[in-house]
């Protein structure tokens, strides 16, 4: 399955959820679920702002609203691939960032969700960038974070 998506998973975020794969998959695709978690802390994503046209070429749009000051952050993406209940791929035309969500059934109603962000930013597209970033960019960032005030 991995051969159907570009192998440019430079930044990955993984979490295991205590829920069956089909349900986690639906959460990432259905506005009624997305509205509950799409905005990070302190940010809401009202149901009526979420547009999901779940097919390749269909839109995935949201407006995240800052709870404290009401600022609005529209996001706009287009689905590239949807394979229930395994994989959702969308790309953001403005930034070129491609996000791949992979759902892995761990058994016992547990599901691993992995988010991979590729082509972000465009410089990532070079083979050199892919090789260098493959696993270590976020660790590199974490390392420099730790160095903190020394620069």
């Amino acid at each position: 399955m991995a051969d159907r998506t570009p192998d440019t998973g430079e930044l990955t975020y993984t979490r295991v959820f205590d829920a069956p794969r089909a349900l986690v998959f639906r959460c990432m695709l259905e506005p009624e679920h997305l509205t509950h978690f799409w905005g990070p802390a302190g940010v809401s994503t009202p149901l009526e702002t979420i547009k999901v046209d779940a097919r390749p070429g269909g839109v995935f749009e949201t407006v995240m609203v800052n709870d404290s000051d009401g600022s609005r952050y529209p996001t706009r993406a287009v689905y590239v691939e949807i394979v229930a209940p395994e994989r959702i791929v969308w790309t953001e035309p403005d930034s070129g960032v491609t996000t791949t969500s992979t759902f892995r059934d761990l058994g016992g109603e547990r599901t691993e969700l992995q988010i991979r962000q590729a082509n972000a930013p465009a410089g990532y597209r070079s083979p050199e960038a892919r090789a260098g970033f493959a696993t270590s960019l976020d660790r590199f960032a974490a390392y420099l974070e730790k160095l903190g005030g020394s620069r």
Partner: protein
Amino acid sequence: MTVADDRLDATFTALADPTRRAIVARLARGDATVNELAAPFDMTLPGISKHLKVLERCGLISRTRRAQFRPCHLEGDVLDTALSWIEENRRVWKERFDKLDEHLRDLRRAPSPRRKGSNQAGRFTRKGGADG
């Protein structure tokens, strides 16, 4: 694409190489000469210089004109722009995951006759309002 985006692209491209990341990590601890930077690597000085030029071009490092040693200096602001992009993304996804976890808990706590024993998520009763 804006100038800032181009800059960010160049920064990420520069950071895509493990040797260059190591150089940046070293410079995060303080300025260093080319010789000092080359020491930990099995590389010729011209090899290191090539990497330094890439880092210099995107503005990540600067080299003073004084003396032949020309110590390299890390431009923290340029690096911070790239790092904050990564950090911001990481934060957003972590918080989304936290909320999703909570949402899934709510769903599975909600009374639904079809919930138990059904491995396909099936239908569920949405719990009113309360999520963090």
